[in-house]
């Protein structure tokens, strides 16, 4: 994992942790606990009030049993225990201390109240008992005594005590206490006055109850005053106030955390929204770019297709043109071939082989009887190959065949060459020049008159047997034709013996590049012509095959034309 990835993870984890912390802190105020706590606090005050009311009811005889006091007291203690146990945890340490301190103070007062309440219940029971019983027993005793004693004196005193005690308790005349105590003491001292009439113990009981009333009435009233004065309500109010203060503080703190949480959340949301916007923009840009790209690709494709179509079309045209040209060339070649002479038979036999290096070659040859005794033979080679060479060579050949050089004796080879040189200057013929070998077979004199310009010599083989064959090269010192108009040519004569074979050929026949890089020389070619003793009807194809074998190729670099004339 890369360092930035790790950092990103840590940041996300931190943010989540922070959010969680803030969320928990913002929700720290437990409203359930708060409600339970405040409910108990309120209830504490209510129950205290009810208890105070019930105490007063008990004093006034409106309530004749203590169950409600007991219930209220128990409820106060239970609520106090509850409150003590369930101070909400969101109250801070200071608050906990404050509340605990106030609860301690409350507990102190509550303990006093419980204690005083028990005292009140007991004392009130005694007082109420005596208050009810004293009039009864005092009246009984007074009546009993009255039967035996005079009306005045102790009996009256007893009745007065009864009356005063009732007034005392009914009106809460505490100022009468001393007066009543004096009466009780007086009666107590005069107990003997009743001796004859009433049992001493009964009188004692009467006095005891009177004393009880006198003692317990202020005591019970004091207890009530004390009970009601106990600052239980104030203590619980103080508790409530303190709690509310700390509760509000906790709320404020939680609100602070909540605010921070909201702010952080909003910031986070904004950031997310920003990221989404950025993402959308990027996507849109990408889409746009994509659309443009597609459009461009479409355009380019269309252009390419168009170009391809054009190319195809052009190609087709070219092919058509080429085909047409080839056809035309073929036609031309056919024409050239058609102009080549048919083999002669009889005394003079001919054979030839013509293989142009391209469809059309620059070589041309022919032979025709000028009269019964003279046979013209020629072979020319226009420099270069192809159509233009072929056109010139065919033109020259046609001129020679049709003997259409005005004022020229076609029996004189030098004159013919001179006329040709004059007629076909290279300036007028596309800078093309040519070589030629031209000879006349004179049947009557049995000789060959010949001339050549820049052409390889013709080879004349004489002799029937292989070992007796004689080879003559028929050459004249002439230059190529078409270059210099004023050139003159010489002609030579060669006598012809029986069984002679004349080979006339172009240089393309022997200038064969061998596989070793050297080129076959003329002398080597002559040897090839000479060495295998040619049969009577020499197979000219044999020469072609030999040359093909030497060049290691079916085709030839130059035009290949060779003319074989056999003289009987």
């Amino acid at each position, binding site marked *: 994992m890369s360092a930035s990835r790790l950092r990103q993870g840590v940041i996300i984890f931190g943010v989540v942790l922070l959010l969680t912390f803030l969320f928990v802190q913002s929700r720290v105020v437990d409203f359930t606990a708060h409600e339970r706590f405040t409910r108990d606090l309120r209830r504490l005050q209510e129950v205290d009030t009810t208890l105070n009311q019930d105490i007063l009811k008990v004093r006034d005889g409106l309530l004749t049993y203590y169950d409600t006091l007991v219930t209220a007291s128990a409820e106060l203690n239970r609520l106090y225990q509850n409150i003590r146990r369930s101070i909400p945890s969101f109250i801070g340490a200071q608050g906990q201390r404050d509340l605990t301190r106030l609860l301690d103070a409350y507990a102190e007062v509550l303990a006093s109240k419980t204690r005083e309440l028990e005292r009140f219940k007991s004392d009130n029971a*005694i007082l109420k008992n005596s208050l009810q019983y004293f009039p009864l027993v005092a009246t009984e005793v007074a009546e009993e005594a009255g039967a035996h004693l005079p009306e005045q004196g102790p009996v009256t005193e007893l009745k007065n005590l009864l009356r005063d005690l009732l007034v005392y308790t009914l009106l809460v005349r505490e100022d009468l206490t001393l007066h009543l105590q004096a009466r009780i003491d007086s009666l107590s001292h005069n107990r003997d006055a009743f001796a004859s009439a009433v049992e001493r113990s009964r009188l004692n*009981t009467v006095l005891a109850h009177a004393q009880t009333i006198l003692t317990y009435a202020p005591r019970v009233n004091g207890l009530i005053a004390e009970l009601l004065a106990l600052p239980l309500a104030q203590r619980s109010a103080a508790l409530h106030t303190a709690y509310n203060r700390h509760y509000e503080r906790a709320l404020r703190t939680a609100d602070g955390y909540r605010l921070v949480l909201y702010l952080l959340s909003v910031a986070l949301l904004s950031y997310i929204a920003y990221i989404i916007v950025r993402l959308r923009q990027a996507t849109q840009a990408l889409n746009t770019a994509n659309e443009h790209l597609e459009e461009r690709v479409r355009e380019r494709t269309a252009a390419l297709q168009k170009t391809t179509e054009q190319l195809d079309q052009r190609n087709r045209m070219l092919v058509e043109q080429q085909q047409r040209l080839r056809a035309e060339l073929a036609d031309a070649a056919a024409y050239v071939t058609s102009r080549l002479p048919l083999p002669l038979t009889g005394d003079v036999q001919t054979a030839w082989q013509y293989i142009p290096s391209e469809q059309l070659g620059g070589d041309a040859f022919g032979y025709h009887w000028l009269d019964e005794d003279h046979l013209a033979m020629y072979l020319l080679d226009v420099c270069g190959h192809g159509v233009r060479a072929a056109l010139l060579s065919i033109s020259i050949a046609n001129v020679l065949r049709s003997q259409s050089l005005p004022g020229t004796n076609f029996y004189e080879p030098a004159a013919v060459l001179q006329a040709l040189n004059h007629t076909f200057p290279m300036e007028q013929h596309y800078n093309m020049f040519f070589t030629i070998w031209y000879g006349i077979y004179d049947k009557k004199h049995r000789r060959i008159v010949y001339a050549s310009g820049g052409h390889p010599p013709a080879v004349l083989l004489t002799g029937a047997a292989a070992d007796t064959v004689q080879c003559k090269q028929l050459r004249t010192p002439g230059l190529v034709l078409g270059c210099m108009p004023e050139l003159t040519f010489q002609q030579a004569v060669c006598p012809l013996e029986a069984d002679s074979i004349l080979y006339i050929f172009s240089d393309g026949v022997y200038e064969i590049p061998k596989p070793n890089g050297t080129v076959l020389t003329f002398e080597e070619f002559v040897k090839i012509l000479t060495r295998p003793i040619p049969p009577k009807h020499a197979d000219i194809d044999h020469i072609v095959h030999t040359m093909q074998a030497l060049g290691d190729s079916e085709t030839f670099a130059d035009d290949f034309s060779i003319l074989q004339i056999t003289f009987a």
Partner: protein
Amino acid sequence: MKWWYTLPVLLFCLVAIGLWQRFQSTEQAVPESVAPVVVTLVNEPIQAIPLQITLDEAKVKLGEKLFHDPRLSHNNSVSCASCHNLQTGGTDRRQRSIGINGAEGFVNTPTVFNSSFNFRQFWDGHAETLEDQMHGPINAPHEMGSNWQEVMAKLTAAPDYVAAFAALYPDGIQPHTIRDVIATFERSLYTPDARFDQFLRGNSEVLSEAEKAGYHLFKTYGCIRCHQGVNIGGNMFQTFGIMGNYFADRGSVTPADMGRFNVTGDRRDQHVFKVPSLRNVALTPPYFHDGSAAQLEDAVTIMGTYQLGRRLDPSEVDLIVQFLRTLTGTYKGRPL
């Protein structure tokens, strides 16, 4: 502009979660109500016992079993019911109960019936609740002579208890769960529908004239000042011997005779006792903390003498006793 929708959706989710949680918390905030024992109030110092008190029946059943189980005592000889025999008014009717190894107690055993209505437990009120009360007999060497660890160990060894407690409490057998179970059972030991309660509920015919006269005397002679409320006592302390020195007359004062003084150390609490309940009083002789009064009549007479300062006439005693006999209630629908 699709992302615009995500913001409100997120906010809505936040608000929804917040509201949901708040809603949840207010639901939980409904105060769990402690069903108070509703006493039908009548304009008399004595209140009738409710006819029906709802309790967890499973706990009651288990508590009843424990209540009768002698394994709660050290030598497996004494159960709660040994002294608080439900067949004999919730007491053993002995002056002093016999604990383990024949040890004798210090005070008379009060009845277990209606003890839940008492504001404190024990004669000197040193236990605030039934649960607290149990510490006393379990640990006292002359009663059960055991302790909670021992009790817990014994109960844990009993698979039926383990299963029963496990079904009721997540923490199973614990001292506090044992106390809770037994206390719940004791709260079921209320005895409603005494003839006097029927009278309180408006059936004036149910009491004879003599019984009514007895009730009248009961009130006239101030007995009602202490023996009031639903339990006819049991809700306050009072000095034994207001109009005479009972203990001097009886002699041989024991520490137990000092009563609440033993708890508070307050001089004013000498000979102060919890006023006992008079419910089913006819069934629970002998009487007083010292079990000195064998007969109800004796008890009434002594009370007259020392609390009122009046030597009650036997005919008056008889009327009052007749009234007291109307306080015998029913348990599980049958008269005690």
